[in-house]
């Protein structure tokens, strides 16, 4: 090492040598072809990118909570790797959202400086499924199984989007999500086929997650408008594919799909409209605390 003081090595003057996870990253879409098709409504496209980006960002934050707290070291690493993949997808999608919006907001501004009603994620991803008091490892696995299966189907169809950036992001995401889904499916089998106790926890976990499935297939007007133009995917069209894959996993695990009814709608608004659960404010507080306490800070 060629520095005398450890602080010197992490100072700005030595920035090029950093292995840094914080601000100061280049724009992740720095020189990707950013063409915006002339027939597309920019506000709609920006909103759609936010929806898909927020799904990934918020679940990434939830999975990161397992860091150092997973049941075994390998799983700690696995959940962190899955979170990192989702964070990468979120960064590209939020960057695209900011560019399409054209108001000068970058990925950091969108992640750290929006308030709860401006987040467009489905509510499934914001739930506390453990390690907090709202769940346990089985609940996290049940949510990941549902989410990764749904998002894999969505991204597979999105590879045919006429938007060149969405199509390219989707093509990368598909490969990653296939690993996430299979990982969750294999854990579902292990927990269901383990002891009576692990099977009971897995059964309870599915019952906890199941009420949040219908929202995944409820199209938002923005999604419908863009789907009609072959830019977005209408999530209603994914239901049979997702049901079939989850059905395969549950059959292999000899588990019955729960018959839990969905929660009563809140003034007919969903996460896609910015209506969130009580789990969202503390999540955002942790996610945004540093950036909001020290505006303009770099780390």
């Amino acid at each position, binding site marked *: *090492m060629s520095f005398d003081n450890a602080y010197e090595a992490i100072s700005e003057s030595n920035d090029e040598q950093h292995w840094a996870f914080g601000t100061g990253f280049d724009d992740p879409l720095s020189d990707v072809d950013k063409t915006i098709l002339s027939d597309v409504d920019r506000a709609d496209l920006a909103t759609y990118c936010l929806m898909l980006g927020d799904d990934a960002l918020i679940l990434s934050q939830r999975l990161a909570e397992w860091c150092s707290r997973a049941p075994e070291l390998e799983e700690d690493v696995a959940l962190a790797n899955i979170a990192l993949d989702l964070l990468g997808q979120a960064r590209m999608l939020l960057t695209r959202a900011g560019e399409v919006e054209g108001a000068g907001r970058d990925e950091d501004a969108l992640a750290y400086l929006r308030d709860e009603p401006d987040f467009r994620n489905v509510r499934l991803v914001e739930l506390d499924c453990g390690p907090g008091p709202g769940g346990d490892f089985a609940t996290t696995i049940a949510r990941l199984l549902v989410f990764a299966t749904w998002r894999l189907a969505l991204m597979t169809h999105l590879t045919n989007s006429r938007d060149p950036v969405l199509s390219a992001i989707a093509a990368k995401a598909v490969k990653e999500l296939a690993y996430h889904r299979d990982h969750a499916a294999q854990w579902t089998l292990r927990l269901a086929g383990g002891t009576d106790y692990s099977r009971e926890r897995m059964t309870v976990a599915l019952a906890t997650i199941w009420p949040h499935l219908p929202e995944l297939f409820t199209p938002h007007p923005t999604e419908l408008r863009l789907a009609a133009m072959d830019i977005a995917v209408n999530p209603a069209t994914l239901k049979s594919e997702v049901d079939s894959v989850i059905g395969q996993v549950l059959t292999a695990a000899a588990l019955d799909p729960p018959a839990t009814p969905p929660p009563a709608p809140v003034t007919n608004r969903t996460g896609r409209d910015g209506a969130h659960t009580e789990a969202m404010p503390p999540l955002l507080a942790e996610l945004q605390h540093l950036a909001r306490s020290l505006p303009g800070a770099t780390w």
Partner: protein
Amino acid sequence: MRRQPQSSPHPLRGATPGPLYPVGGTGAGETILPVDNSVGVWTAREIAERVPDPELPVLSLADLGVLRDVRTGPDGRVLVTITPTYSGCPALDEMRADLRTRLAEAGYPDVEVRTVLHPPWTTDWISDAGRRKLAEHGIAPPNRIGPRPAGPVPLNLSPPPARVPCPRCGSPRTTELSRFSATACKALRRCEDCREPFEHMKEL
């Protein structure tokens, strides 16, 4: 696992750039060219191709298949095009910085590094030399998958079949311990004969 001295993705990684080649990163039969940073000795492409990957420094960016294009304009400006391995690959920014540093040292101060997402990277882009170097360093290389079929990705309910021989003793009897290892691109396996754990760069 044996690691190269400069391989640790540590925040305090030395401020002095390493040699032009990854130490020990070249296999038998490969010419080890002397390190000479004087201007004009190497083309920008030759420099860029030899920049080591930040996470797998036994591989160059060319071996890894993430270097898509290197062009030098008449004004000496160099345009390098790279593609990320995984969406969240934190090494991408490091690659950009390394490319700029190495090219600047070699006399190309004006460098632009562009990112392309299409066509998406797969492990099939890793060169034969890259596969050999991975195995030599104790990392089982990924199998080649070929063109992926369109449509839904089939579900895998059990770990993939053991098509991954041990990079140390060659035994085909190996078991997956964890689908995710120290980086997103690797899985952790164990050889049932020599009992050594090893990493496998998994197929993407």
